[in-house]
């Protein structure tokens, strides 16, 4: 197990460097001059632009820029935005909000998704199963912004259960509604994944053997069906955690949340390479750690993986 964990951690290193390098390169290649854009229509005094360029290392070759950046990154210096604000400040504002939102969404989609999927799988072909399939298909096909506006209108405006916009601090309570919207698509996938997996395992020979032992139905389902069915679901959740952190732009927009998605989007349009790369680098780390966690959970759920190496 220790060896397995160590190997997974070692594998994170090339992933980290590869991803940051690619992102840095892509932002570098974006058309337009961010410094010129900074000053808009009024060109600054000659020499100023050169000075600013030098300050941000923009006058050096790409590869040097990258390594200077990475060097600083490991010293904890994430650089500053072109407007002079430290990137770490921007992050401190955005990440906790998005993190809370993603955690809430992950909680909703996994708990509700697994429960609904389990019931649907156990009653394959019955009314509950059919309705679950229809609802999940709807959730997958309706765009997030439509669902977001509908939820906001119904639960926020008409019923008044939730606040329609999220305040600056974004406390947990205010994030419930956006989290539900954010979770909806993944919820639908988890329902389908769990359902298929449960229905599959229900026909497994070992489930029949468990029944033949004289076990009660609830015990057969929880001990022999559910645990085996969770492996693919866990994989999905691991990948999804990453996309929840990044892909919340639309939801953040609808509910006016100052999260990661919006910040990165703004930074990309402004060509703020240090901001973009720093955010992406942190996200890569989150993504890789989440995957490591999933792999370990995997091994915990399925001993064959644990002993394979």
């Amino acid at each position, binding site marked *: 197990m220790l060896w397995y964990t160590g190997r997974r951690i070692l594998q994170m290193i090339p992933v980290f460097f590869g991803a940051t390098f690619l992102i840095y390169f892509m932002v570098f290649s974006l058309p337009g001059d961010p410094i010129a854009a900074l000053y808009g229509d009024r060109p600054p005094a000659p020499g100023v632009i050169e000075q600013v360029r030098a300050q941000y290392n923009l006058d050096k070759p790409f590869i040097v820029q990258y390594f200077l950046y990475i060097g600083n990154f490991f010293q904890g210096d994430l650089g500053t935005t072109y407007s002079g604000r430290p990137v770490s400040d921007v992050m401190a504002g955005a990440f906790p909000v998005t993190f809370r939102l993603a955690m809430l969404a992950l909680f909703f989609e996994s708990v509700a998704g697994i429960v609904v999927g389990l019931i649907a799988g156990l009653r394959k072909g019955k009314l509950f199963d059919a309705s679950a399939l229809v609802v999940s298909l709807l959730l997958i096909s309706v765009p997030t912004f439509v669902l977001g506006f509908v939820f906001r209108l119904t639960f926020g405006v008409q019923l008044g259960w939730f606040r329609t916009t999220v305040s600056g601090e974004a406390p947990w309570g205010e994030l419930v509604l956006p989290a539900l919207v954010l979770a909806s698509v993944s919820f639908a996938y988890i329902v389908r994944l769990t359902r298929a997996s449960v229905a599959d395992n229900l026909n497994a020979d*070992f489930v029949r*053997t468990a029944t*033949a032992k*004289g076990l*009660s*139905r609830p015990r057969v389902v929880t001990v022999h069906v559910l645990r085996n069915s969770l492996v693919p679901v866990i994989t999905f959740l691991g990948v999804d955690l990453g996309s929840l952190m990044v892909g919340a732009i639309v939801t953040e927009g609808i509910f006016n949340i100052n999260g990661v998605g919006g910040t990165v989007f703004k930074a990309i349009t402004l060509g703020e390479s240090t901001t973009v790369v720093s955010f992406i680098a942190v996200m890569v780390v989150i993504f890789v750690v989440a995957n490591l966690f999933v792999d370990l959970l995997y091994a915990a759920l399925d*001993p*064959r993986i644990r002993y394979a190496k």
Partner: protein
Amino acid sequence: MSQSVIDITPEGLPVGSTEGIQADEQPLLQIRNLEVGFQTQRGLVPAVRGVDITLYAGQTLAIVGESGSGKTTTAQAIIDLLPGAGKVTGGQVLFEGRDLTKLSAKEIQAVRGNLIGYVPQDPMSNLNPVWNIGFQVEEAIKANGLAQGKEARARTIEVLQEAGLSDAADRLKQYPHQFSGGMRQRVLIGIGLSARPKLLIADEPTSALDVTVQRQILDHLGTLTRDYGTSVLFITHDLGLAAERAEQLVVMYKGKVVESGPSQEILANPQHPYTQRLVSAAPSLASRRIQSAKHASAGDSAIYSGDSLDDTLVARAAEREHAAPVKDLISIENISKVYRIRKKGLRTDELRAVDGVSFGIQKGTTTALVGESGSGKSTVAKLVLQLESITSGSIEFDGQDVAGLKGKELLKFRRRVQPVFQDPYGSLDPQYSVGNTIAEPLLAHGVGTAKERQARVKELLEQVSLPWSSRFRYPSELSGGQRQRIAIARALALKPDVLVLDEAVSALDVLVQGQVLNLLTELQTELGLTYLFITHDLAVVRLVADNVCVMQRGRIVEAASTDDVFDNPQQAYTQELLAAIPGGNFQFGR
């Protein structure tokens, strides 16, 4: 428990009939006119149609039939283990006078495990891979209220030890994938018998195992059930096995009981045409028959002339005796294959899968490689096919060293040496129609025009006795035997000289197995093919092989002509394998 007197029902009466049996003894299990159907989109498809079976305490009864005959469905219906769409649609299952089909879910749950134990077919898939062995046994013990807590743990160890796992205490924390097939089956037998049930249903408990392991396990099961006085309902497709292990026999065909009675009687004097076919096709029995046919007078062999299987096989057997020695087509010199197995950390272990194996195959003959799983026989097949590279030694084909072949040369070699694999379900692409499957090698090697390929497919389908119309069908629409015919047709498409048959008939039912073996023999005579036949089934070897190499732990322990190996085995291991053939010591026919 006292040894109960076994009532043998009068001849001609179905076992299910209660007439002629003393009224004071109640049967332990009495199945009356049982009907089971499967709900499909086209309505209810009957699988079991009016089955009667009677089993008395302490008796062993075997249900024999090919797959699809409804034998497993009958057994599963007894304790309501039918898969989702299955339903008992009529009849009764009386267990100690109580109709099990009428019980509520709670009541049948109390019967399962406690009164009726169950040992399933495939040890590989019947243990939950994510729980350790101890947990899975203990669970059964607790569920049946036999013991709790520490006591349950102690009982778990006891159960496993009784089932033949002597080091049970140390292995409780291990997972199914760390156990061999035979050991897993022992665990399953332990679970089935853990509550000392009155009846044990054993559904093909050993068909996935090697013959020697099979024998050990069945011997052990026999001893245990005798000691506990447990009745056994034994389900198998192997007639020899049934005859050896059960005193009563029920033969099922297409959901019905076609014949039932004492095993000896049925095998000696089968009445129903299906039973007669089954008796004549069982390879373990046929081996003996060929032997007798070869030495028998013409009058004697006329008894078997109804069966085309024997004619060809006997003819081949005679032919092979006259075969003149020629140069080997394939000669294998001292080949070894070493696999590196990763261990904990950076260390590796070496596994010598094949260790200094040498043998030769003459053109137009069949050489069988026999051994248990793990003996390295399939690895030899892969090495000969150049699917894996040899670690040392040399393989010569038609005078050419094939070890380092690359590119065009390798392609040429592949045209001449073709494989047929064990699993006809896995070796055909489900997305390819039969016609495309057979034409694929032609296409891959750029043989002929589209029209010529079409003609060749037609010819091949004829050779394997399948109708021309089957070219549009897909593997999922075909039976196991038909699929294996397709696999053979595909292998023959390029007109190879050699077929490497890796357990090519092991997954098939006896009757189908007989047909495919017959086909292979005919094709060999017709096309002058050379076979390397890999199998764990010695009974089959006798039918088809000229020479036999017995493998054990990567080495050839005995190599000789088929007759020598069977009549005069030199090595203890070979003798053990021969003795383990089910039904081998049983008198069939006369």
